């Protein structure tokens, strides 16, 4: 199961009425959205969405039926058990962290409008504050950094300095190779916010 599906399933299961609807689905051979809604006393649209989500996730099956009026769906359980399994390794940047990624040359962007706050010991950056938008719509986004990220940004070249590769900056910051994924992550985020630029 991928993360989006798991999130959708989690959202369905967390609903107040989920248990009641599952009880109905387990009891009835098949049930329509209007029947389930009337039994649980919730809106038919809410029930319809819930059943459709479960159908989309492959937990329910459905059949379109005609009983002299406009067609509708009847749903039934396709499975007796629901198992949720997410591979967290897929979130790691390990795949991306190859030589080309570490060779990426970066520096702070000119007039990035970001504020770098140093730690109490002043040897690493503790947070980066970025302002987005203008006037009343101006919003502030503060990113707190881990110590390896902070040390890395402490050595980030200035806006008009020569670009340095991530690997070179890591060497200056004496970063461990185990910190590569989190450093790549913060570089990506700051590039997205226009605080870091590349060659």
């Amino acid at each position, binding site marked *: 199961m991928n993360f989006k599906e798991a999130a959708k399933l989690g959202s369905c299961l967390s609903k107040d009425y989920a248990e009641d609807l599952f009880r109905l689905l387990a009891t009835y051979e098949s049930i329509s959205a209007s029947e389930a809604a009337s039994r649980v006393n919730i809106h038919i649209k809410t029930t319809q969405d819930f059943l459709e989500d479960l159908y989309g996730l492959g937990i329910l099956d459905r059949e379109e039926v005609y009983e002299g009026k406009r067609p509708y769906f009847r749903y039934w359980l396709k499975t007796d058990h629901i198992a949720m399994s997410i591979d967290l390794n897929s979130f790691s940047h390990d795949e991306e962290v190859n030589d080309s990624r570490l060779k990426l040359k970066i520096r*702070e962007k000119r007039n990035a409008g970001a504020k770098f706050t140093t730690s109490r010991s002043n040897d690493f950056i503790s947070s980066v504050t970025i302002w987005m938008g203008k006037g009343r719509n101006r919003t502030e986004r503060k990113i707190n950094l881990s110590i390896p990220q902070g040390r890395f940004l402490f050595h980030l070249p*200035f*806006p*008009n*300095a020569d670009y340095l590769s991530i690997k070179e900056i890591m060497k200056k910051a004496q970063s461990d190779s185990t910190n590569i994924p989190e450093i790549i992550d913060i570089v990506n985020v700051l590039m997205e916010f226009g605080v870091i630029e590349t060659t």
Partner: protein
Amino acid sequence: MYYPRKLKRDFRITGFIPAIICTSIGAFIWIFIGQKEGVYSVSVFFILYAAFSLWIFFRTRNQSYLAASVWQLFFGLWLATRLGYPLIPGIKSELLALLYFLLIASTIWLFYLVFTRKAKWKGREVFELASMSIELQSDGFTERPHPAGKTEYSGSELKGFAEFLRKNLIAMPYFEVNRIVFVPVKMEDEFGYMFNPEKFRQTRSWIAFDFIGNVTVNISKKDYIGYKEELSFDQLCENLGKLFIEFMNYYRKGEAERIVFKLNELGLGLTY
């Protein structure tokens, strides 16, 4: 040798403000109350100012403030014995002659210190030296500190270096648990440092030496816009760091006087 000036001229007269206030108050009292009261008020002001100068001397350990304090005290006392209305009645003529002699001696001492630049806050010289041979490059400013490198020194050498820079008014040290931060103070900026050192530090550039040899530089916006043109910011940080590392090396080799010579060689004015 001619050194092109990179900093904007500073036309502030902060250093003269106490003297201007004193003279103005004295003149008003002279006009509206009387001559004797006017002279006495200036006399009292100078005696109080002597205490203030002594306080600065204890803060900086710079002998020109001790000289200023002594001169202000003697001048205040001398004024109090003028005009045939001595503030201290029954004062002996021998004592007056001694006071006069001490006033002349302290004046010579003070002038010597002023003209040999020992009384000069040398922050401006520091920034001029740091900006030499730097290219022009715009939009380079960032508020991040710059790791300027690593050098070798012991804890006691660092403390001694801090004491030397303070005594010679080159940069004021702030002692922290793991490092010493040096803030160069420009002439006319000294009262800002004296009255609120913490606030002063937040808005000024600094150079930090930690106890394991790392040197970090931070140039403030206020100091950066003090230059006539937009200089390459990273080069400026790099140079400021290198300059202080060089100063430290001079100090460690027992050639600390070369630091003062190098700064004085720029030939900046005595009052800015």
